[in-house]
């Protein structure tokens, strides 16, 4: 993903729904990556699989989500930068 300081996540009820949308987004050539859901930001319950979207694609995604019949729970913004030189693993 890019070096943006935040990203958007699409949250789902089940991983099957997440994977269905992932395939559909891929077909529409919209960049999205399978990511562990930012559970701390989601009050209520969701499955652990979410899709991460680049901030620059926000408008495209908004339009996509309005049109799609695929199921999802919500769309959240989370602060997230990538530090490949990580020291803590869990």
């Amino acid at each position: 993903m890019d070096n943006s300081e935040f990203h958007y996540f699409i949250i789902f009820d089940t991983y099957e729904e997440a994977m269905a949308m992932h395939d559909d987004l891929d077909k529409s050539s919209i960049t999205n990556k399978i990511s562990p859901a930012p559970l701390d930001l989601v009050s209520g319950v969701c499955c652990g699989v979410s899709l991460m979207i680049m901030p620059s694609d926000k408008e495209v995604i908004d339009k996509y989500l309005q049109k799609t019949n695929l199921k999802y729970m919500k769309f959240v913004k989370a602060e997230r930068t990538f530090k490949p030189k990580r020291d803590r693993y869990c």
Partner: protein
Amino acid sequence: MADRHEMWKSLGMNIEQHDVLCSVLPGAVGDVFMSQKNRPKGMEFWDMVVADVHGIRPAELIEEQKKGRKVFGTFCVYVPDEVIIACNGIVTGLCGGSQFWVPDGEAVLPKNTCPLIKASVGARLGKTCPFFRIADMYVGETTCDGKKKAYEILGEDVPMYVMDVPQMKRPEDIERWAHEIALFAKKVEEFTGVKLTVENLKKAIHIINEKRKAMQRVYDTRKNKTLPISGRDSLLMTQISFFDDPERCATMCNKLADELEERVKNNVSVVDAGTKRILVTGTPLAIPNWKLHNIIETTGAAVVCEEMCTGTRYFENLVDENINSLEEGFKALANRYMKTNCACFTPNTGRIDDIKRMVKEYNVDGVIDCNLKFCCLYDTEKFSVGRALKEANIPVLQLETDYTDTDAEQLRTRIGAFVEMLNK
């Protein structure tokens, strides 16, 4: 249905603590895996599994338990999955790879126990891993003293069966291992209520062989100068193969191998040409232990092979499928398993031969021989491994580490210097 908390609660887990563990996952997965460029599309399956690592597979296991199937938790590549699968059981790996579980393990174990054992005991006693809660029976083995004693402690909390792994590889030891597998089979039959037959054993052997072949196919693509997959991604695949359904695992690995073979044909590499190729050898890297691979691969080198239990030792060598009796089946299993070269055997020169062979097969520039702290067996074997590699003019760096992050900079300096040395 996605209410994981309900599931975890029903497993008697410590939800509050478990949430702390889960909260690290998005960052760790993001940094180690998602930040990589040009990953194979086939990794999406493993991305999905790891994203919901305590959700998807545990939920499946619980569903199967409802149908009456039994789940066996194992800690070693010497435990023959085939026997369990044949009796309609399910195998799940249970080795702990996170520092998060270590303090709970240290509550009952000496501090100078290897982190893998401490984490495994801590994951059970701290109630912070669903796999450790779900397993109906744990199957231990006598591959090190720390584990043997830890199994006694775990055995007070969960049904425990320990297999006596021989310490040498003479013909009588291989025979003894076949006998030990027969004894284990009786226990599995009793526990699952399913009788072991030549037919179901044959079928199970085939299933596990297919899984081994599929994993080998992925590893084979790493032998090419064009490296189609990173070490981190390969490691993740291997780590998760211990938890997954073996047939699905084979399907997914084969699908990934198809893509990687295509990448090799089209010269699609995940690293720049000339990137130094590292073989790592030593103690296992249980999930989510990505420390060594991540440091190596963010220091300008690439991991192309793991001569480890979480690596080639898990899938090299197949079991003979041509069996006509259970006795033949046990012998065939014993013959295959006793080919695995673990430092718990004496002598263990086969491991050195394996490393030297893989250095050639995988076009390796340097070997990193790393053991978990307090693993006396692999630590001691470093002497003969290091000497043999130096004699063969193979650069080697020998390290010791644990699950903490305190030595990360020291490891970076050593690994960085090693890579600079290879690049000179």
